[in-house]
């Protein structure tokens, strides 16, 4: 019997997360050199907003499922008891307001809460995947994870970046001693800094002792970033050496560049931002958001006794965005095995660290202690990113 899946989403429109992930449950996706169609059947859909281009009805008709007006009905497929084996929550895209930290108030917590209400009332719960960060608010995110523990259902969350292809195919050895780590990201806040933070987190969580929690954060932006001694120039050179998309002179005449060594970096990045994240075990990590420098996501870390390791998280081209196929294969694993392939705590800590970083920015870049982010967990024994 195929697993019965409910999709709960903000919008279902071409190239929205719901479309490119949800469709993979309907028509399959490339996996390990085959077109893979999992033993899954989408049986119900909830869409919060139906803007122009909405595809929900069209998909429902073609693939034989129903769009329900509420989340509870979606999970119960119109009946009076939970009638699905798994829930896919995709609260990304759609028209939602922003708060004073600049976060889009996607209703992931609200969607999740409604699912939990059904689970509680019906005395049964099923695996839940939550796309991207859990919530803009750590308290809400924490509540979500706590509920999954309390009710005993497996939960997976997060972005495609930790599971996509890496150039090169780098996995840090579990238990390695990381002395310093730096991530380079681009794009707006809060969607893209979240992706970058999660990419960094999936690497640093593999260090000796595992993740020990975030002790403090500080978000500095503007010129002050360049002279801040807390980030390593050597790691930045290494991360940028993995980029396929340097800007500036490369755009002019396609030349290769050492952006750091030549000093071009400072000329082409108008408003750099550094997210300094200090961990309870003493590790200091930095995300540099360098809009104007590059267009891809790269990482470098100094490993004790082994030198610098670096890679690019490969965001494959639109429209295929095959990185989302990598993610869907992990969601499928969650649904089939009722075990999360990697810990939801990764997404929890990143959700919270991002919120605190944005709060730091709001206070003009003050360092904030984050005792609430003492989230401890271990990385997975086996690599979870695309490599086969």
């Amino acid at each position, binding site marked *: 019997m195929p697993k019965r899946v409910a999709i709960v989403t903000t919008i279902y429109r*071409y*190239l929205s997360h719901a*479309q*490119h992930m949800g*469709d*993979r449950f309907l*028509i*399959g*996706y*490339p*996996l*390990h*050199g*085959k*077109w893979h169609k999992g033993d899954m059947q989408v049986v119900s859909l909830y869409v919060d907003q139906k803007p122009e281009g909405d*595809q929900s009805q*069209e998909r429902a008709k073609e693939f034989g499922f129903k769009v329900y007006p509420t989340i509870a009905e979606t999970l119960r497929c119109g009946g009076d008891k939970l009638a699905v084996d798994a829930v896919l929550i995709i609260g990304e895209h759609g028209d939602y307001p922003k708060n004073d930290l600049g976060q889009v108030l996607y209703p992931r917590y609200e969607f999740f809460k409604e699912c939990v209400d059904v689970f509680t009332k019906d005395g049964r719960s099923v695996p839940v995947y939550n796309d991207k960060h859990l919530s803009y608010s750590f308290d809400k995110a924490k509540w979500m994870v706590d509920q999954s523990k309390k009710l005993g259902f497996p939960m997976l969350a997060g972005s495609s970046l930790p599971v996509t*292809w890496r*150039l*090169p*195919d780098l996995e840090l050895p579990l238990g390695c001693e990381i002395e310093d780590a730096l991530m380079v990201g681009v794009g707006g806040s809060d969607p893209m800094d979240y992706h970058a933070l999660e990419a960094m987190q999936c690497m640093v969580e593999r260090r000796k002792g595992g993740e020990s929690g975030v002790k403090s954060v500080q978000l500095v932006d503007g010129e002050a970033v360049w002279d801040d001694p807390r980030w390593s120039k050597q790691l930045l*050179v*290494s991360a*940028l*050496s*993995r*980029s*396929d*998309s*340097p*800007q500036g002179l*490369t*755009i002019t*005449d*396609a*030349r*290769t*560049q*050492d952006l*750091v*060594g030549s000093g071009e970096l400072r000329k082409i990045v108008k408003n750099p931002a550094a997210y300094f994240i200090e961990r309870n075990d003493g590790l200091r990590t930095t995300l540099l958001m360098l809009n104007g420098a590059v*267009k*891809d996501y790269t990482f*470098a870390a100094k490993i004790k006794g082994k030198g*610098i*390791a*670096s890679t690019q998280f*490969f965001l*494959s*081209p*639109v*429209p*295929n*965005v*095959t990185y989302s*196929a990598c993610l869907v294969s992990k969601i499928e694993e969650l649904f089939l095995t009722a075990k999360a392939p990697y810990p939801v705590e990764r997404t929890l800590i990143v959700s919270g660290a991002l919120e605190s970083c944005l709060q730091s920015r709001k206070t003009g870049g003050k360092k904030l202690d984050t005792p609430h982010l003492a989230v401890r967990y271990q990385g997975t024994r086996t690599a979870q990113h*695309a*490599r*086969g």
Partner: protein
Amino acid sequence: MISRRAVLAGAPLVAPAAQIGRQKIAAICTTYFKFSHSQHIVDRFLFGYGWNGTHHMPPFDLVSIWVDQAGDTDLSRGRAKEVPSMKIYPSIAEALTLGTGKLAVDGVLLIGEHGRYDRNEKRQTKYPRYEFFKEIVKVFDASGRAVPVFNDKHLSWNWDWAKEMYDTSLRMKFPLMAGSSLPVTWRTPSVEMPVNAKVREAVCVAYGGVDSYDFHALETLQCMVERRKGGETGVKWMQAYRGENFWKAMKDGVWSRELMDSALCRSHTLKPSRPGFNNDFPAEESMRRLVRQPVAYVYEHNDGLKSSMLLFSGLVEDFNFACHVDGRKDPFSTQMYLPMPPARTSLANFFSPLTNNVEKLFLTKKSPCPLERTLLTTGLTAAGVDSLFQNEKRLETPHLARIVYPAPVDSTFWRS
């Protein structure tokens, strides 16, 4: 028989570096504009490139350049101003002798890709690689010594000339490296064909034109299948298919549908076949609608291996490989990843591993990849073009049946 063992016989007559210190390199180019092969390769010597997690500066001085066609979009003059150690010379001979009358460089880049050159009746672009090579060799002859040469892409559009280039490097005992970036770029997944695998059939799904990207696709295939048990045994015959004949051949199972589908499933650029879907697997009628001019080169090696190169322009924009390996249930497949500017990236970074391998050629005076691979793919490209020109006739290829070589044990593709 053409084999590498013949190359290895006898001591090489390659001269030691012209002088103690950094080696001097000359670049002989058809043209040098933004996104031309010369720009990608020579720029990496001038400005360095990301390699092994740092910005790597090649330990060479690119001291001279000769450009056949320097038009309005030329960048070589600007580069020479910016990097004064590189001088522009008015002839190939002078670029190699630095005006001294004798060979004065330690390595030569021969980049005969891009530029306006005539096409012949078979639609082959007559890039003057052979002509440039002859000029280079003339200087070697006159100077009584020879240095390593890298020839970008295939040796020549003309088989006899290509073979002469190969023979000349053997006769004069200088290392000649040639070929495309495909064998050396990133792979998703990052896998190498196991050495001594028993390979029954191989397919490459790619895109692009005849006498152009077909060569890249053939290199993609060859760098993998040459690792099979027994090494490369030579190619017996070649048959090309296009248009309706292609679709008929596909239906008739001339190549494995399973391998073709597997290669397609490694693509990151499958054109959606239905509006509103971003990544669906195309049904046959969608393939026919999306691919207006499909081209296949199907050929058989002496040990019975069948290889097929499929150009699916309109359906994919990448190079994907799949083969049947004995003992494996599923096809062995991967994509040779080309970060292609300007749509997806700003740097054509597949030229970084190619340049790095060229550096190895210059440093060790030994080509890191077998020249026979490129001799074979050069011949296969020409044979494919010939078959198309002769109404897709199956052509016996006795000249390619003699190309026998073992694959290098070390992988040369980009992994770190």
